[in-house]
């Protein structure tokens, strides 16, 4: 068990180092002289010919590449990601205030998605090959085929502009009441939830069908447990364990969906920040965002691996 976790940890740390080297090299390849970007133009003009050279040495830009990489990585890991070119505030502060809205959007979507997927998947598994099962297969395929940003625009057209039920953009309205954020959250969270409910439903169905065929189900039935008890207490509980792993694997996809929907609904999260920073060539923020996502995705991969081993002890014997 421990060696398994350690091996997966090493793979993930390796991937992170690889990403960080790639990002570092790209930062160096970014157009423009870092000194000219960091220093006030008037100072630059007044400083004389050796000003740039002195500044370069001061900033450590003349050190060997390896030294600069280590210093950069140490700063990044301790939360010093530099300053935004646009707002001139620390990147960690700029990113920090955007995490909350994104987590709120993703968390709500995940919860809603599971609330739909678990009952629907259970129904499809119990009534296997029925019209309901067939319909759920087609619906889940349809849901993963429609781009979420298009659904978002369509939802704004129908529910905001035509019916006027929900606000179309932002997270709050000035002077809004206690349910203001909730009203803004409904459309983007529901659409993001749909995009994961489709695949989750298939996993629940597949897992439940496999569990329902297992020997222990026959044993439970033989001991007199009724169908609801067998289904809910025995089969579904075991079928849901692998879903934890699936959720972790879907976090990057959920995040990508959130980036697009934040853009459509003007939701003030990290995705919206990243897209506007790319547009403004605000490299420090873009790179801070990329590193944050890389760490998040790798942590989720690791959690998926570990939870998989915890849920199924046979894995660790390999």
């Amino acid at each position, binding site marked *: 068990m421990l060696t398994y976790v350690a091996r997966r940890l090493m793979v993930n740390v390796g991937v992170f180092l690889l990403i960080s080297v790639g990002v570092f090299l790209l930062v160096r390849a970014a157009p423009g002289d870092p000194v000219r970007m960091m220093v006030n133009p008037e100072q630059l003009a007044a400083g004389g010919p050796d000003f740039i050279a002195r500044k370069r040495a001061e900033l450590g830009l003349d050190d060997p590449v390896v030294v600069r990489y280590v210093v950069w990585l140490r700063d990044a890991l301790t939360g010093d990601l530099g300053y935004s070119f646009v707002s001139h505030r620390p990147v960690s502060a700029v990113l920090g205030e955007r995490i909350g809205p994104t987590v709120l959007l993703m968390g709500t979507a995940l919860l809603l998605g599971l609330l739909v997927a678990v009952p629907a998947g259970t129904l499809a598994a119990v009534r296997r090959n029925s019209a309901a099962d067939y319909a759920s297969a087609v619906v889940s395929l349809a849901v993963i085929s429609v781009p979420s940003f298009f659904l978002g625009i369509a939802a704004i057209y129908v529910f905001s502009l035509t019916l006027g039920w929900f606000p179309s953009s932002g997270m709050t309205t000035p002077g809004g009441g206690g349910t203001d954020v909730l009203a803004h959250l409904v459309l983007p969270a529901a659409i993001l939830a749909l995009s994961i409910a489709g695949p989750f439903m298939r996993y629940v169905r597949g897992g439940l069908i496999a569990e329902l065929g297992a020997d222990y189900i026959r044993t439970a039935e033989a001991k007199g447990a009724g169908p609801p008890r067998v289904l809910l207490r025995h089969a579904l509980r075991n079928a849901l364990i692998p879903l934890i792993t699936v959720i972790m694997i879907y976090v990057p996809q959920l995040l990508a969906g959130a980036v697009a929907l934040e853009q459509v609904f003007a939701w003030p999260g990290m995705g919206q920040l990243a897209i506007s920073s790319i547009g403004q060539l605000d490299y420090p923020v873009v790179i801070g965002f990329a590193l944050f*996502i*890389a760490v998040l995705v790798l942590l989720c991969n690791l959690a998926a691996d570990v939870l998989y081993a915890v849920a199924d002890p046979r894995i660790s014997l390999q």
Partner: protein
Amino acid sequence: MTAVLTTQISRRSPARLALRRFLRNRMAVAGAVFLVLVVLLAVCAPFVAGHDPNAVDLTAFRRPPSGEHLLGTDSSGRDVFARLVYAGRVSLLVGLVASLAAVMAGTLLGAVAGVIGGVADAVIMRTADVVLSFPSLVVVVVLAGVLGPSAPMLVVVFAACNWPTSCRVVRGLALGLREQEYVQASRAFGAGRASIIARHIVPAVLAQVAVVGTLLVAQIILLEAVLSFLGLGVQAPQASWGNMLTDAQNLTLIRTMPWLWLPPGLAIALTVLAVNFVGDGLRDAVDPRGVR
């Protein structure tokens, strides 16, 4: 009597059986027919468009659909139908080229890993593990942010991030094929590894690889659409289905000009759905054990 028997047997080659199973799947056939239509429209774009997709006409902007402009015009007076048809070329091409490149690389690496084994196998499969746990969104965001977005960049990134799926499938199959009598026999006759891979492994895995590749096309068309919509993919003035929706991020345009955002959105959704139906149909046709 014997003549009848032989014809019956020869008609039931695996490929024919697979084709028959595929044709019995109504959704897959409908998807295939729809895709043929979309591809024909895209290929014949210069003849069916009727307008130059990039011709700006400031005297006729934001016009609703009419006989002159089938799907109306956008904010610069460009014909939406012409842009839709030409955008199909870009979206389909990115999906097909990236998927083909990913699947070709995956097949070759998977076959090498499976047939040669040893160090080559370990290196290839660990690299596949690393690539699979690589967040491709990060790659695109950083590359688009620092180098600038473009369609060729998307193709390279998609191909580089998606080869491990087919690599794993092919390696698994190759491990089994390697021990088959006909492969052993060919090795005994002195065939080298390269010729075993080329003559025995690759032809035998093509069906499964086609399934993986088809489903990958659907994923990549969707990804390209999202990234182009966000401004990280295909750049204006070149139209792609994704970036045609970028213009519809304004509430007034969403409300008053549905012809601007509805057609490209439906084009993405229906094309991806059709590719998914065909992919599922192919999978069931190639491997009937998986059918419910």
